[in-house]
Structures are given as structure tokens and as C-alpha cells.
């Protein structure tokens, strides 16, 4: 294991939300939008001066460092407020320890390699790509040119999706669902690390590993009946199969598509069976489970989350990143009857995570070609996306009636990432 990242997320949120402020959240944030815009302009100007000075000195000046830290924190506070990751109205100065969702930053500026300072704008691009798929609310700002605010992925980022779904959920229940809160917090944390890297607060590259980001600041979710297992340290990648990965996966993509057609038909039959009996048919459950497992294997191979070429049968226990599924359990008939409608929010989160998965795969491809291994953080971000995809499919295809858990942390009692 490596040293913990110097830019750390702090979460002291109790999930409770005030419906009134949630309903009017965007309007309430208008003063912050104006203030954030002004501060961003100020940071753009001072950030450039800080960059020029730091190239020569190898260390940012303390005054600049404090200013940048304040901006990183304020950005996190505002994003947390907007995306419902926490409830209280944030302050305007980004003071440390003043908000339930906070960012711990190095108190003093640290010496940095001059060449990394000089090329910071270029080195930052891969992190920006990931940040724009996770924390699009701010990633868009960072990715914009000439200060224009836009979402660089064109919408559908994880934080945005969490905020949107969380808004409805919170208005109904008065509480933010843990999964969405954790996912949002993770996106905020990564965005803060990215901004801190760009603004020379630290020279440590952002780490996309969700476990490292969250495990110390929030509880693990309960054990889910659909679990991803495997060795998170299995990072070796064969350069030749990485280079041709997309083409090597083509036979699998054709096979998985054909299998999906049959699996959909099987799921329709299963829907009737489960609705009538309350329990899925064992044979169909086995068939659909194999399909979902095979899909995980193929995606793990395609998106470079695992190294070996997978088999075509979705057999358990043969692939480094595998799926554990419980046997058929009794399911709630209401949940069964409205399964497709109920799955829509999960499908939206799944799509958002799909963007992150794609970005991570693209970056891993370059990294693995050079180093012959996958980067730890991106590998674990991808494993999270795949786990959620598997849980969503298991829910949609009636393998389980347990709703997919959006928390980036694995459930309790699970051996893997």
C-alpha cells in the first residue's frame, strides 16, 4: 500500500435533509453561484501567477497556498450543498472544519518537482477526464476554456445523477439515500484532489480508488446478494492483449449480445413465474445468473479491469474478477410487478458510472501499454462501476429484489474491492 493522499475527504453527515431547502436548493444557491464565479476568476488570475513563481521556486508561496486551499474547500462545500451530499448552507470563505463535508489539505506548501509544475496543465488532463465523469458539476468548470461554465461530458456525470435522484428521494423521505450520498461524496473527493493538483496545493496525483477515499469516513453498506470478488492487487496487464483489447473482445461482444437476447426472453418468463410463485424458477435463475456473470467477465476484460481472456460460459470461479450470487430467494411481489419502472433510477446511475468506466479504461489502456500494469485507483473505480452494473442487471433480470447499492464501498463481509 502507498501513503494516504494528502487531500482527504471528511464526511460528518447524518443523511437527514430539510425538505424545504432541498426543494429550493438551486435558488438558494444563487448567491453562491455569483460568489463562486468571482472567486474562480480571481483564482484563474492568481493561479497563473502562483504557477509562474512556483516554476522558479519549486514551492508555492504560503499566501497563494492558503488562497488555493480555500478555493478547493469552498468548491467542495458548494458542490456538496448543491448535490445534496450534505444539508447545511455553506459559508462563503471555504474555512477548514466549518462544514460537514470538508476537505483536509496540507497546511503548508510542499516542495514540488519543477518539471511537474511546468507541465501541470498537461499532466492534469487525464485526471480531468475522470473528474468530468465523476464530479461533472465542477469538472466542467475546470475543463472549460476562458472561464465559461460547461459540463465537459455533456451531462450524465455521477455527481449530477446522484443530485437529481437524491432530490426526489429526499423530498419523499427527508433523508438522502446512503448509496447516492456516498457516491456523491466520492465524486466530490476526487474532484477536490484534481483541483488541488491543478492549483499546486499538492503534487500528488489524484487517486480514483473509492475505498481509500471513503473507508475511513463512512460506514460500509450492508452485504448485497450480488457481490464482486477477486484480487484487487491483480494489476499485471499483458501489453499485447491490451493493445488489441477491443478487437480481442469482439467475439465475446457478439456472444454476449446473442446471450442477452435469450436472457431477456428468459427474464420475461421469470417475471411471470416470480409474480405468481413469489420465488424465481431455479433453472432460469441459474441461466440468468450465468449471463450476468459472463457479462461481468467480458466487461472486466474489455475495460481492462482484469487481464486474462475470459471463457464463454460465465462459469463461476474461473475469472480473476468474479461475481458471487445467492440462490433464488423469495421476492416481494410489488417489487416484482413494477420491476422495470423501479429499475430506472439504477439504470441512470449505471449509465453515469459507465462514463467513468469508459474514461478509466481509456486512461488504463495508455498506462498499461507503457507500464504493463493497471493503475490501482482506476482499476478500483472500474471494479466499482462493474459491480454496480452487475447489481443493476441482477435486479432488472429478477435474480434478486435487493436494490443496487450505489455506494462505492463494497458491502460488509466481502473480500474484494
Amino acid at each position, binding site marked *: 500500500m502507498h501513503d494516504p493522499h494528502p487531500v482527504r475527504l471528511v464526511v460528518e453527515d447524518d443523511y437527514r435533509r430539510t425538505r424545504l431547502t432541498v426543494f429550493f436548493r438551486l435558488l438558494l444557491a444563487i448567491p453562491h453561484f455569483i460568489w463562486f464565479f468571482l472567486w474562480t476568476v480571481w483564482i484563474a488570475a492568481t493561479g497563473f501567477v502562483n504557477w509562474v513563481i512556483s516554476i522558479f521556486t519549486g514551492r508555492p508561496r504560503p499566501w497563494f497556498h492558503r488562497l488555493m486551499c480555500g478555493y478547493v474547500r469552498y468548491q467542495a462545500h458548494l458542490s456538496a450543498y448543491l448535490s445534496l451530499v450534505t444539508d447545511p448552507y455553506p459559508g462563503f470563505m471555504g474555512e477548514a472544519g466549518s462544514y460537514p463535508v470538508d476537505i483536509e489539505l496540507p497546511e503548508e506548501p510542499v516542495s514540488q518537482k519543477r518539471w511537474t509544475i511546468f507541465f501541470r496543465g498537461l499532466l492534469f488532463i487525464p485526471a480531468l477526464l475522470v473528474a468530468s465523469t465523476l464530479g461533472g458539476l465542477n469538472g466542467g468548470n475546470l475543463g472549460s476554456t476562458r472561464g465559461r461554465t460547461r459540463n465537459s461530458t455533456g451531462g450524465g456525470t455521477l455527481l449530477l445523477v446522484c443530485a437529481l435522484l437524491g432530490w426526489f428521494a429526499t423530498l419523499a423521505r427527508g433523508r438522502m439515500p446512503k448509496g447516492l450520498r456516498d457516491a456523491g461524496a466520492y465524486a466530490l473527493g476526487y474532484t477536490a484532489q484534481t483541483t488541488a493538483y491543478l492549483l499546486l496545493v499538492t503534487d500528488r496525483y489524484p487517486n480514483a480508488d473509492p475505498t481509500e477515499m471513503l473507508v475511513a469516513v463512512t460506514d460500509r453498506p450492508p452485504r448485497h446478494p450480488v457481490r464482486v470478488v477477486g484480487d484487487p492487487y491483480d494489476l499485471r496487464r*499483458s501489453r*499485447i492483449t491490451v493493445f*488489441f483489447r*477491443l478487437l480481442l473482445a*469482439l467475439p465475446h461482444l457478439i456472444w454476449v449480445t446473442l446471450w442477452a437476447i435469450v436472457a431477456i426472453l428468459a427474464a420475461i418468463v421469470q417475471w411471470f413465474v416470480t409474480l405468481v410463485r413469489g420465488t424465481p424458477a431455479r433453472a432460469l435463475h441459474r441461466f440468468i445468473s450465468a449471463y450476468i456473470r459472463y457479462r461481468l467477465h467480458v466487461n472486466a476484460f474489455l475495460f481492462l479491469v482484469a487481464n*486474462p*481472456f475470459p*471463457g464463454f460460459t460465465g462459469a463461476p470461479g474461473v475469472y480473476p474478477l468474479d461475481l458471487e450470487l445467492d440462490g433464488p430467494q423469495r421476492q416481494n411481489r410489488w417489487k416484482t410487478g413494477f420491476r422495470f419502472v423501479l429499475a430506472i433510477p439504477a439504470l441512470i446511475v449505471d449509465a453515469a458510472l459507465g462514463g467513468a468506466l469508459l474514461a478509466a479504461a481509456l486512461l488504463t489502456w495508455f498506462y498499461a501499454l507503457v507500464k504493463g500494469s493497471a493503475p490501482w485507483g482506476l482499476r478500483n473505480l472500474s471494479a466499482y462501476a462493474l459491480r454496480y452494473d452487475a447489481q443493476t442487471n441482477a435486479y432488472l433480470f429478477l435474480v434478486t429484489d435487493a436494490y443496487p447499492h450505489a455506494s462505492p464501498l463494497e458491502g460488509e463481509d466481502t473480500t474484494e474491492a
Partner: protein
Amino acid sequence: MTRSRVWLLLPAAAVWAVAAWLLWRSSLPAYHLPHLDEHALFPAGALQRAQHFSDVERLFWLGKTITQLAVLAVFTRYGVRWMRESAAGPIGTGMLLGMIGFAFVWAAELPFGILVVWWRHRYGLSGSYLDATVTNWFALGAQFVLLCIALGIVMGLARTRGIGERWWLLAAPVFVGLRTLLAFIAPWLLGGRAFHAPYVEPLQRIQHVHVPVRVLSGFSEPNAAATGLGASRRVFFWDPIVRPPFTPRMDRFVLAHELGHLAHNHIWKSLGWYALFAFPLALLLALATRGRGGMGVPEAVPLAIFVYVVLQLVALPLQNVVTRHLEAEADWSALRATHDPGAGRQLFRLFASETLEDPSPPWWDYVFLENHPTLLQRIEMTRYYRASVRETGHP
């Protein structure tokens, strides 16, 4: 080889020979072509240009082929080490090894593809670096899929209890069936727009072939093809051939040629020849891979690919003999249908300047690369036709 196997092979060889003789029969007259001098038929400058272009293009082919064989030979020796990159079973692992082998070949051949484009550009011919690299990459993906299907069939049969080493007896008909299916459905997949000309219907009547004629766009070379079986039969023109400098008279000749293919059942005959080659090739493949455990195990796949490519290369001259024979019959059929040897002659002369095809290539090029009669031979045939009509009053 045991005596009983020899007794089995002899009747099989006899059947093969009879089938080959039946497929070889054609409507071509027993004619002897007079030797023509290409210098008399083509302008010296055009001839020199075509020959120089073809000389270097041949060298590229030679380099590409040698590179391909060298890469596959090395892969045969060391390819097995990539088995560790697979968590699939034996068949899946075999597929992975096969794809990696193809990937190496693709990478090694890439410079030659780029060189060919560069060389074509020097002579003002079309060619795209994008096609030679990026599009070629996607073509490799299609190859991967076909390879996996082929290996799935072969390895699946070889691993089936009761079949084992005799997989080739079943695999050959399966491949012939797939090839037939592909020949049947391919015309519908190609699409194209309808082609209308006043000579289409009269030619169809003469050739007794009433099929749609369509034009495919997006091509840079002038060409045409007859495809399909039964209800799917079609004639396709590549769009450059229906544009100037090609004239309607030439297009009429081209259409008659393609209809001639269909009138003489050349698609079926091609499938017949494919079947005749498939059985011995599959048998040789089975024998060659026996030392590595047979086609049921992934370790045999790198060797199988190498042997397959070598066998293809060895069979190439024979296959070219067959296709040249079929093309000659289609040319003869076109001459009889159009009674216009002048159009044929002009067409073939134009091909030399438009595609820079060498009218009279060296022997090894003729043996390995020419799947059509040479332009000179085709012009000779038009002269023979005109002479025979003059002598006898009918062709």
C-alpha cells in the same frame, strides 16, 4: 501410412479427380491463342508505366508474404506462452492464441500496406492511408470473429468424444455449408443502387439470366462482380466502371461477362472447388497438428495457423488456375453474347492504363497472383473470336 489407409485414400483420390474433371468442363472452345506482342497493343509509355508500377507492387507482395510466414513461424515457436493470458477453457484459449497470431501478422504487414498506398499515390492511383491503418484495424476485428468461429468449429469437433482426430471429415462439410450460406446472403448485405441501361434486358435475354444489376458506390477501382445463389443472384458494378472513361459499350461487355458467370453456374462451381480443396486441406491440417496434441488443444493453434497459411500459399497456384479458367469462360460468353470483340479489346487496354495492371507479368506473378487471365491473354481471346467468326461465319 498403413496399407488400409492407402486403400481408403485411393478411391477418395479417384472421386476427387472425377469431381475436378466435372467441375473443369466448360463451354470454352479448344483454341490455341496466338502470341501477341504487348508492345504492338499498348503505347510504350503506358506499358512501361504499368510494368514499373507492377514490378514494385510485386516486391511489396513478396515482402509481405515472407514477413507473414516469418512472423507465424516465430509465433509457432513462442506463441504458446500467451496461454497464461487466458482464463477461458481450451477452446477460448485457442481462440485467444489464434487472434494474437493474427494480430502479430497484422502489425508486421502494416508497413507494407502503407508502402502500397504511397506507391499508388506516386502513380496517381487512389489509396487511403486511413484505410491502410484505421479501417484495416477494423478489418482485423472481422478476421478475429471469423477466426473464432472457425476455431470454435474445429476445436469443438476435435474435442467431441467419438470424433477426435477425424474432425476434418465433419469440419470440411460444415465450412462448405457456411460458405454456401454466405454466398447466398452476401448480395442482400451489399445493397447498392439499381442500374438501368438499354442493353441490360437484351443481354439478360441472350444469357438466359434475369437478375438485378446494381451499382456499389465508395470504390476507387473499376470492377464488377456476379454473386449470389438462386433468388439472391445479382450483378454488381463498382461505380468507377460506369463513369468515363469507361463507355456504355464497354459496360455492356462487362455486364455480359458477369452474366456469363451466372449463366455457367460459376458460383456453384466455385463452391464445388472450395469443397474439393477443403477436405484435403483439413486432412493435412489434422496430420500436421497431431504432434502438438491435435486440434483439440490450444497448444496446436499457433502451428495450425502457420500450416494453414502455408497450405493456402501452396494451393494458390491451383486456385488461380481454376479462377482463370472460369474467367476465361465468362470472357468467351461475353464475346458470344455481345459479338463485340472491339469493346472487349478497348476495355482491357483501358484497364492497363486505369489500374496499371501489367499486361504480361512474369511467370511467378502469373502463377501466384493472377486469378484472371492476363490482359494480353484476354485481348488474344477477342482476336481469336474475331478470326473464328470471320472463318466460319459463326463463333
